[in-house]
């Protein structure tokens, strides 16, 4: 970890940060921390300590201020995850409509337990709390940004097989 400066990010990324920072008063740049961290996660797959430090420099705050945010919010990956992070909701409303079953089906299909990543680094499987899509149960969030609704076992198979094929690993 040598260069801890905002320049650790490329121009396009800084441009995305700037757009977020512009939403808040000048002296409140830190308000953009959540959005910037999610941009980092989208681009790098996870939030590394080096990225936290560089973002802190960009936001002009101490690295600990950024680290506190990374650790508080559930969706930030603090270490690398699979290419596709699958979050299946198992909260009560979903549990009543096969949310748990969907999670078990994926455990079986991927050959891993929840919380684990497949050996080829393709999939990480996690159980999650309410995604705010309860009437669509079973629901699954893929890579933080894609909600998949009404995920019957057949659709889960289609999705996993499709993603594998798209990566040339079917």
């Amino acid at each position: 970890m040598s260069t801890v400066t905002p320049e650790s990010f490329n121009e396009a990324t800084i441009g995305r940060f700037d757009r977020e920072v512009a939403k808040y008063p000048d002296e409140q740049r830190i308000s953009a921390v959540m959005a910037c961290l999610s941009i980092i996660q989208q681009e790098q797959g996870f939030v590394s300590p080096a990225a936290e430090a560089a973002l802190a420099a960009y936001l002009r705050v101490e690295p600990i201020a950024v680290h506190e945010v990374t650790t508080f919010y559930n969706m930030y990956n603090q270490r690398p995850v699979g290419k596709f992070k699958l979050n299946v909701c198992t909260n009560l409303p979903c549990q009543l409509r096969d949310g748990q079953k969907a999670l078990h089906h994926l455990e079986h299909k991927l050959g891993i337990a929840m919380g684990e990543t497949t050996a080829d680094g393709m999939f990480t499987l996690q159980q999650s709390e309410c995604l705010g899509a309860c009437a669509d149960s079973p629901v699954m969030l893929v890579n933080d940004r894609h909600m998949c609704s009404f995920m019957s076992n057949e659709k889960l198979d289609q999705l996993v097989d499709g993603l594998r094929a798209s990566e040339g690993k079917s």
Partner: protein
Amino acid sequence: MSAEQILNQFRATGVQTCFHGRHINPQIYADLNGSNWSLKDYEARGGYQALRKILAQDGGEGLTQDQVIATVKESALRGRGGAGFPSGLKWSFMPRQFPGQKYLVCNSDEGEPGTCKDRDILMYNPHIVIEGMAIAAYAMGISVGYNYIHGEIFEVYERFEAALEEARAAGYLGDNIMGSSYSFQLHAHHGFGAYICGEETALLESLEGKKGQPRFKPPFPASFGLYGKPTTINNTETFAAVPWIIRNGGQAYLECGKPNNGGTKIFSISGDVELPGNYEIPLGTPFSKLLELAGGVRKGRQLKAVIPGGSSAPVLPAHIMMECTMDYDSIAKAGSMLGSGAVIVMDDSRDMVESLKRLSYFYMHESCGQCTPCREGTGWLWRMVDRIDRGLGKPSDMALLDNVAENIMGRTICALGDAAAMPVRAMIKHFRHEFEAKIAAAQTPAKAA
């Protein structure tokens, strides 16, 4: 196909949850089809007429700030975020002559298990929220606002940002709105997976770029809010109700519901019904009617219990629920709360110990850890329910469960502590025999052998 294309195949279409045509006198969800969310479609439905009306852009005289607030008071609109606080009264708390910056915040952090109504508003009718916020900002003399959107619904956040761009380009947001002297800047902000950020003061901390840990109230946000400035926070659906009220009058809105419970309300129905989804109906509609709209209990089974207002609300057994009408006062009288309007339906095959175990896990997981009764108590509750469910419970656990729950209530900074405790107490009040049966089974020697 690219990964993106594959994932898009599984996106919700809204047909099951929103465009099913089984609403009753809808105002917010009226005439939506999934492809008519944009500005020109919203205008064709009468959108932005309320904003034009107050700014005298429709040839009328315009409305003063006091008149807007009086109209909202008259409508008996109550906060749709869960607590049901009268919205007009909340707006009147804002110091209108305050010289510094004030803020308006929309709470779209919908994370209460069972609730997905705000998602469909923002996805399929985003401009109704923008117009409602612009009217509120005008009434309270606020020039900057944020909409805090649940991090898990990123596609909705992107949709809302697109709608903001449209509204700015059309002059409904920004400096000197429609040539008036009134300006309002509105931005979207997203969460990233913390239920507690739905609590209004945790939300403010989060907007400030910190951990989402609730503040003590009072002071309420109206006096000490975002960046320490006077702030008004309302739920997405609360703002979405405002344009209709301004167009049609407070009295007309009140008459849509019942006294003290004005207007329509969106209920998210999940669990054991044939047709889960969002249903917009007048407040005061019988629960039995709502259940019928949702296709009745699944697979012809019998209704066992209902959690009427999101997972934080006390459960009610079928016979009590079937007597209720869906409004704040009726559900409160029955011993629960209307909350966020998430109706979780359970049929006669459901095991209440197992159900409570899942809820207790959730509150333990989401406690922000600031208050000892909540941080320690939620874990303790879960461990007890878990051991009862696994056949390891002791007879003394029943009293202990109630005691721990009772000792959390009223002793914490925010209402999450109560939200964790209330479901436990209601479950053991109404379904005590199920807990006792599991404990008794655990005591029999046959089991031990």
